[in-house]
């Protein structure tokens, strides 16, 4: 007979498996850990999740995470408000911030995918058009994922944005820094060759 966890722990495991990259085994391990740990620790975790969820909302401008109406990037005076970088998800902002980019952002909240039922109406595209009309951008940078959904979204956006007479650029594809050429796959290398420049 397979050991049966008590019902409350089973519900906990069930909730944990809904988190990304947590499978049933990992969920069980986490649940056992929480049951074993001091009561304050588990309750503190629950309270922290609640507090974060209640206090954090989406920035009214960019759609990134914010603890007030606007996020700290959109409220900052030291950012270049003429350059707008379009990304798929809030976590992409953190990645681009690592580069030293000083412009501002717009989060689409996903990419076009008929298979997953994601249509343009599900993305923050009307908000984007609204921002382009009210804020004065010099350049729009498309920083979408280099997969077919990202490509489709980029093509769709270029079509919508062309009437605004803006400079639209797209992130280059290529070889990761610190990597070895021999480990790059053919597809990445051919994109990198396509985008090569005069040295």
């Amino acid at each position, binding site marked *: 007979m397979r050991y049966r966890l008590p019902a409350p722990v089973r519900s906990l495991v069930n909730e944990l498996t809904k988190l990304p990259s947590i499978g049933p085994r990992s969920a069980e391990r986490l649940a056992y850990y929480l049951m074993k740990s001091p009561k304050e620790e588990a309750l503190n975790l629950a309270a922290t999740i609640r507090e974060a969820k209640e206090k954090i909302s989406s920035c009214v401008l960019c759609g990134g995470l914010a603890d007030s109406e606007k996020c700290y990037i959109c409220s900052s005076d030291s950012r270049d408000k003429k350059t707008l970088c379009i990304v798929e998800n809030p976590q992409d902002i953190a990645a681009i911030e690592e580069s030293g980019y000083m412009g501002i952002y717009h989060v689409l909240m996903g990419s*076009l*995918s*008929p*298979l997953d*039922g994601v*249509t*343009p*109406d599900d993305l923050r595209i009307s908000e984007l058009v609204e921002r382009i009309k009210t804020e004065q951008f010099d350049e729009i940078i498309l920083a979408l994922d280099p*997969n*077919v*959904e990202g*490509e*489709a979204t980029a*093509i*769709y956006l270029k*079509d919508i944005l062309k009437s605004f007479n803006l400079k639209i650029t797209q992130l280059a594809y290529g070889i990761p820094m610190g990597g070895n050429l021999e480990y790059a*796959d*053919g*597809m990445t290398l*051919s994109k990198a060759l396509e985008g090569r420049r005069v040295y």
Partner: protein
Amino acid sequence: MKLEKLSLINFRNYKNRDFEFVDGVNLITGPNGSGKTNLLEALYFASTTASQRTSNKKILIKNGEESSRVKVFLFGEEGRFDLELVSSLSGGTQARINSNKVKNSEILSSFPAVIFSPEDIEVIKGSRSGIRRMVNINICQINSRYIDLLLKYRKILRERNALLKARTDRGTLGVWTTLLRESSEEIDRERQIFINKINKSAEDLSPEFGLNEFVNVNYRSSNYTDNAGFRDEELGYTSWGAHRAGFYFQLGSRDLKDEGSRGEARISALIYRFAFRQMLEEETGKSPLILMDDVFSELDSVKRRLISEKLKNDQVIFTATEKPEELEKADNVIAL
């Protein structure tokens, strides 16, 4: 590169069995149903991660088992190495070289093999999709980028079909059409390059096999037109593109599917496989393993001698129900 040993677990009719091979001619004999073709299929699978007979990888796993393992031990310029494919009913196929996980596409360049199969006639005289599958596998064997192109194409196709099926185009169909056209044209280009090379070799090979005309493969791409676009919206799926394109085997300008005898189809298949063997050696710099599934039984003695002569420097694995006289001096005989 030479094959030294094959080790099978739960593959087709094999529970757990090892086979050893030598350089030169290896002959596998046994009655019908003893597993000769399954053995060649296992080797072809280890080389290409595909079967020459089926696109359903699940039936390669022995009935009633959850997973199978095919492992080959090879000796190449780089020394001895082994290559392993573990397939499970639930989760696809995992490739390993020297026990290290690798991408399935890496297998293709490590262990080149060419199969001559009696089913080739059925493929040539059969459906467009059968020939497409055979040629797709062969292009993957020489072109490491091609598998990525195919996977990307299939992804775009699935997305576009989902949109057509749901009939909820919110102005995005054109986007998916653009992407699919680009991707389809890229695949067309790679296929045409491949076919041109095959046809060039086939020109030299055709007279050798006693043909007055050249065997050639004709590729007809399936392109987007405005009409096709309207048709798609009515049908609810994509009716054009690389997944609908056709390869046609021809003798001169005669299509062998409808206007060729079985004999002509058989010789054309042989010539195609020899042309591919030559290309594979040129592109990979390795002499491929030759798998000959019951090829001699339906050929006259002139052709048998010609084939033996052409393969005299190769490592070859023949299967036969009885020992053909051309293989009297096989270097290694495995009786099943």
